């Protein structure tokens, strides 16, 4: 069941990538012409990708040929030296600063590179406060402030009914505690993991929601970035490793209830189980990333339609805009749902994995050990 769902999501994601690739290649093919002719052809693939990937400055709008952006700090470590400067030094990729520039093409396109003497591009250690990092800072501050204030109102109301914002958050807290932590981990251990699960749930949920707000400083594609989801999955992974009991490890390296020839000359089962240990967080990472990115791509795709049609004829652009906006709004609503569902799924799966790691002996096992 879970695997079919996973397969579905990954196939959807791959399909999207395949669908987008031709656009990109077409866009790349057009680039040459576009530079020669004065008209700037609209390239939806590029536009969409540039909106969902990370960048060094926060692009707000283009008016004519001026880009309105918020520059963000760049932090580089190269050849034993730290470099700090604002991304505005690059002048949107047109300038080189201290030997660093934004790569114009290739695998590192859009990233800060340094061109070595032999012409190859070297990537320095890049700790820049990029758009996504900045977005994470902002949403994290919001989350922390919200929950500190909610905690304070809990101190105030104590044993009485919740008030104000607290009553908005409380059903979610109870949902995570009762439906996720308690039901997946069990009565004995759930209290230990509740804070972690609550934190991860609200972190994802708020980032998903705030990622839909298209106003600076919100709206960075945070949970649609594989590094972000990867780190979140890494925390769950760490949690599993730290809390896994003897039983859990025994299950992996000496799976009970499996014929010995699957284990002994060739350790097939241990290998499969060990791979399973790593696929679990990997699944978490991919699922969240793919879902959120897909949502953003669809919305941007609908918006792109307006400009694609607008290029052929102005009337067609206006015509399609009605449909596009309507569809974008519809998808946005869907994304609100997805924001919750994905936060829920991530937390639930984390809880289930943790639950498996802390699970006590059960019948089957004791039975098996008696046999051996």
């Amino acid at each position, binding site marked *: 069941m879970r695997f079919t769902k996973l397969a579905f999501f990954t196939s959807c994601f791959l399909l999207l990538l395949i669908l987008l690739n031709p656009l990109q290649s077409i866009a790349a093919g057009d680039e040459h012409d576009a530079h020669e002719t004065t008209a700037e052809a609209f390239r939806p693939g590029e536009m969409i990708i540039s909106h969902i990937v*990370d960048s060094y400055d926060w692009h707000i709008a283009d008016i004519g040929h001026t880009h309105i952006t918020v520059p963000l700090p760049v932090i580089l470590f190269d050849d034993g030296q730290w470099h700090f400067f604002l991304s505005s030094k690059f002048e949107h990729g047109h300038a080189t600063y201290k030997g660093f520039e934004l790569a114009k093409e290739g695998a590192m396109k859009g990233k800060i590179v340094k061109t070595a003497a032999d012409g190859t591009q070297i990537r320095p250690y*890049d700790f820049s406060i990029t758009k996504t990092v900045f977005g994470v800072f902002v949403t994290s501050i919001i989350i922390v402030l919200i929950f500190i204030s909610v905690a304070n109102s809990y101190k105030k109301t104590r*044993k009485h009914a919740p008030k104000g914002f607290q009553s908005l958050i409380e059903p979610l807290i109870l949902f995570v505690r009762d439906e996720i932590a308690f039901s997946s981990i069990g009565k004995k251990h759930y209290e230990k993991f509740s804070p972690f699960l609550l934190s991860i749930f609200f972190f994802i949920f708020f980032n998903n929601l705030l990622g839909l707000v298209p106003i600076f400083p919100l709206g960075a594609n945070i949970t649609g970035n594989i590094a972000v989801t990867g780190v979140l999955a890494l925390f769950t992974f760490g949690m599993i490793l730290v809390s896994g009991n003897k039983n859990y490890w025994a299950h992996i390296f000496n799976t009970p209830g499996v014929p010995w020839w699957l284990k002994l000359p060739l350790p097939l089962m241990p290998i499969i189980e060990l791979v399973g240990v790593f696929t679990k967080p990997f699944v978490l990472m991919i699922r969240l990333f793919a879902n959120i990115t897909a949502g953003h791509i669809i919305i941007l795709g609908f918006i792109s339609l307006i400009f694609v049609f607008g290029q052929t004829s102005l009337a067609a652009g206006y015509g399609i805009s009605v449909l596009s906006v309507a569809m974008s709004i519809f998808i946005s609503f869907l994304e609100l749902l997805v924001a919750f569902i994905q936060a829920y799924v991530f937390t639930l799966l984390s809880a289930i994995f943790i639950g498996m790691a802390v699970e006590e002996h059960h019948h089957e096992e004791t039975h098996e050990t008696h046999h051996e």
Partner: protein
Amino acid sequence: MELVNPGLGLVFWMIVVFSVVLFVLKKFAWPSILQALKDREQHIEDALRQADITQEEMRKLKLNNEVLLKEAKVERENLMNEARKIREKLIEDARVKASSEADRIVESARIQIDNERKAALVDIKNIVAEISIEIAEKILREKLQTPKDHQQYIERVIEGKHLN
């Protein structure tokens, strides 16, 4: 492919930020929130249990009251019955006493009357005897001039008259 290629810097910052968020929330937010929720749930459960207990007690009390009331009624009934019995007995006693007293009075009255009557009779006898003697004396003085007459007469009188 940038989309699926996690950036080193982003991973680094994300680890830092999420660790801080996790730490701050774990330290300052969740304990008080979860504790408050638990306390409240406990409080509500206690209150509900208390309410149940109170209700049960009330029910018992009511039942008790009913029993008491019933007992009181029975008691009252008994008291009333007793009182009635006592009253009846008292009345009966009084009646018996009164009637015996009356009997006694009547008896003594009767005895007295009897005595009076006897005395009166004695008196009357005496008077009658005196009068008789007087009359007899007069008659005798008139008629019995001779001693023979006297004798005859006396005999006749004694024969004829049976005293008492």
